[in-house]
């Protein structure tokens, strides 16, 4: 059943998808940092307030994924920031996350060698988001 984008239900389904993924489990072995996704507000897209997704990821598993404020997400070890519509493009496979980062469409903060070392894990995490059926605030 489809859930509202960036809602608590979405976060739970996303967490389940990550923990179901054997690809992620293998690729993220040794990962021990938190990741925050900042989803910037776009009122004209019916997404009036910025939100944060705080992901506690450890050694190939998602210990928790929660939706909170943008400020909470900004405290994570790695922070990826983009407007709502960019995240929608990533989740609907219109935009490849790696390309998005190289183009500056997704802004990354954190230790670059570490994130590059886990490129495959981050790609699989993106795949996991695409498996969650979503109702978008500006329509599908």
């Amino acid at each position: 059943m489809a859930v509202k984008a960036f809602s608590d239900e979405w976060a739970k389904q996303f967490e389940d998808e990550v923990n179901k993924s054997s690809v992620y489990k293998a690729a993220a072995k040794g990962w021990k940092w938190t990741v925050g996704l900042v989803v910037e507000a776009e009122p004209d897209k019916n997404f009036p307030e910025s939100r944060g997704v705080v992901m506690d990821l450890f050694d190939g598993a998602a210990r928790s994924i929660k939706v909170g404020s943008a400020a909470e997400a900004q405290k994570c070890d790695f922070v990826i920031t983009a407007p709502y519509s960019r995240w929608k493009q990533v989740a609907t496979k219109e935009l490849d996350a790696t390309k998005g980062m190289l183009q500056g469409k997704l802004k990354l903060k954190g230790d670059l060698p570490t994130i590059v070392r886990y490129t495959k894990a981050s790609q699989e995490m993106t795949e996991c988001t695409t498996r969650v059926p979503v109702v978008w605030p500006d329509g599908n």
Partner: protein
Amino acid sequence: MHDPGAGRMARRKLRTKTNTKPVEYADGEPSAFAAMLGGLIEANVDSRADRKKDFDSLVARVGIWVTDIDEGVTLDFRKGSLVVYNGLQAKRDLTIRAQAGTVMNLSNLKIGLLGMPIYYDEVGRSVAMKLVQGKLRIEGLLGNFATLNTVTRIFSVQ
């Protein structure tokens, strides 16, 4: 040109590298790709003595063009410093053309014995396959094989 670090000479040092940043950007607004690659190299060189040794010895102009985003950079290595340019500049020794994912994979090549990149593990095989398929093109390889290996080591986060 006089090299102040080359040995004993009766001249004052013309410049010192100790207080300068190892990576600088030629453009006032480096592209996201330029900033990312420059940041990656700087972090690598700062944290690993073997990478620093390679960085301090390398003189080469290397272009990297990401074919699926139509963006590129030129990395001008100058023995212990690097200037990153947006786009491809003239007089490059090597030019690497590949898709974004392959460029990221180049940074994930493991380095083996004698400082040679490993092409027989999963990442290495995928890079080698791209080369065979023509999806990774390296211009100027003839005569610059050692330079390519050094650049690969400086990129490598493994």
